[in-house]
């Protein structure tokens, strides 16, 4: 008798275990938070605002960034030490990890989702990998006309399966066409300005803008009109004024393009600049709490959220776009490093490094609606980035 009852019970257990190990779910509300000191990531979900798991062994993540596969299942994590790691968000594991250079700064995924490109400092250049296998497809050394290597920064994807990036020392912008992945066709724009330190592409994939550290202004490339070359815009900004020291370089990724205007961090000034996208002229300045680092628009473009460099990095401010005024100043704590909106922008997640937590705010009421413990959090990356050019 005992044997007979034992068998169905055993089968029931298998059935239950089967359910427990394969719950079906989508990935559109998932994301990754970087634990920069521990070299690990937390996989999170934004619907219930919970942590789903932690993945270790990703190396030096002191300047890490993440791109997503177009099915939003896999995350590509780019580490400072040149490590490129492919993560399966559903199985919560490392699929593959390659050490592709000595020192890297970020990456991008191609329009068709088949290629992952990495921007490197040492040795400078761009390496392109197969997004499925992480096998090397193309290697693009960043050498100037005299054969001198440059650090590569501001690598983004562009329509037409192209990548655009800038050479810090050489002061050049390169466009790499990878429609034939093993034979990148390069178009080089020289003398774009001194020390491009970061760049962004507008969400429509048309304008590539590089910030210049070595001089005033921005280098602008219109991808719809390559013959026009790289133009300098905002040239006169800050002429004759004493610049303040910059304790952390601004990031241009996520520069707030709010329709007709672009809101960008000033360099060496406690200001956000308002730039008209038609004339590329400065049309306003907004005084803020410190040197801006990230200036990011809520998905509806009504608000822009700003965080700051040391020693002002305990504060986040919210700019109301129509009135160009600061409508809220929040004090999440020391070491606010990054902010990421939920897909439609009703909430924002903020990493607070020195408090070892991520705080979550309602973007209409500015009330804190949650927080999660995360070890020295830096970048927060949600999966809807998979479908946005330049992210």
């Amino acid at each position, binding site marked *: 008798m005992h044997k007979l009852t034992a068998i169905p019970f055993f089968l029931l257990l298998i059935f239950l275990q089967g359910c427990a190990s394969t719950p079906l779910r989508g990935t559109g509300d998932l994301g990754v938070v970087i634990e*920069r*000191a521990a070299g690990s990531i937390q996989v999170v979900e934004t619907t219930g605002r919970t942590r789903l798991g932690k993945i270790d062994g990703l190396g*030096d*993540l*002191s*300047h890490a960034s993440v791109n997503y596969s177009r099915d939003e299942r896999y995350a590509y994590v780019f580490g*400072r*030490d040149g490590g490129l790691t492919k993560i399966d968000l559903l199985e919560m594991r490392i699929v593959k990890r390659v050490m592709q250079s000595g*020192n890297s*700064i970020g990456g991008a995924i191609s329009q068709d989702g088949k290629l992952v490109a990495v921007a490197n*400092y*040492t040795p400078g250049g761009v390496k392109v990998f197969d997004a499925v296998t992480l096998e090397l497809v193309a290697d693009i050394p960043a050498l100037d006309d005299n054969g001198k290597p440059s*650090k590569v920064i501001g690598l983004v994807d562009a329509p037409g399966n192209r990548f655009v990036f800038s050479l*810090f020392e050489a002061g050049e912008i390169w466009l790499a066409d990878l429609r034939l992945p093993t034979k990148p066709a390069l178009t080089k724009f020289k003398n774009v300005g001194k*020390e491009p*330190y970061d760049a962004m592409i507008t969400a429509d994939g048309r304008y590539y803008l590089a910030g210049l*550290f*070595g001089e005033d202004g921005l280098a602008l490339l219109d991808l719809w009109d390559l013959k026009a070359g790289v133009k300098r815009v905002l040239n006169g900004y800050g002429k004759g004024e004493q610049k303040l*020291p*910059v*304790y*952390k*370089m601004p990031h241009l990724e996520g520069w707030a393009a709010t329709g007709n205007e672009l809101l960008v961090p000033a360099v060496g000034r406690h200001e956000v600049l308002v730039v008209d996208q038609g004339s590329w002229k400065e049309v306003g300045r907004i005084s803020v709490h410190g040197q801006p680092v990230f200036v990011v628009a809520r998905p509806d473009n009504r608000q822009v959220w700003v965080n700051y460099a*040391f*020693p002002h990095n305990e504060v986040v401010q919210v700019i109301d776009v129509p009135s160009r005024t600061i409508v809220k100043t929040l004090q999440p704590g020391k*070491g606010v490093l990054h902010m990421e909106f939920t897909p439609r922008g009703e909430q924002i997640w903020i990493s607070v*490094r*020195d408090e070892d937590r991520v705080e979550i705010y309602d973007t209409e009421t500015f009330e804190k609606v949650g927080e999660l413990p995360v070890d020295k959090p830096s970048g927060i990356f949600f999966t809807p980035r998979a479908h946005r050019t330049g992210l």
Partner: protein
Amino acid sequence: MVFADLPSPARQTELLNLVRQDCGSCHGLRLEGGLGLPLTPQALKEKSPEALKQTILYGRGGTPMPPWNPFLTDSEAGWIVETLLKGLP
């Protein structure tokens, strides 16, 4: 180098956090370099400690390296140099 006033243990913890996190944002969390040069003992061994201290306090013109003297005393900058040359604990 001899220092008249060594930073207090609490201040040393703060300074180490500053070096790792804030210097690290350009020089790498492991100080192996990034936009800024590497700051490992190997990379710094040929450099003059006094010049390194001056660089920390006053920055380097023509580069992104900013002056840290608003946040550090002379002896704290000296202690950071000595700590970098030995390797961070």
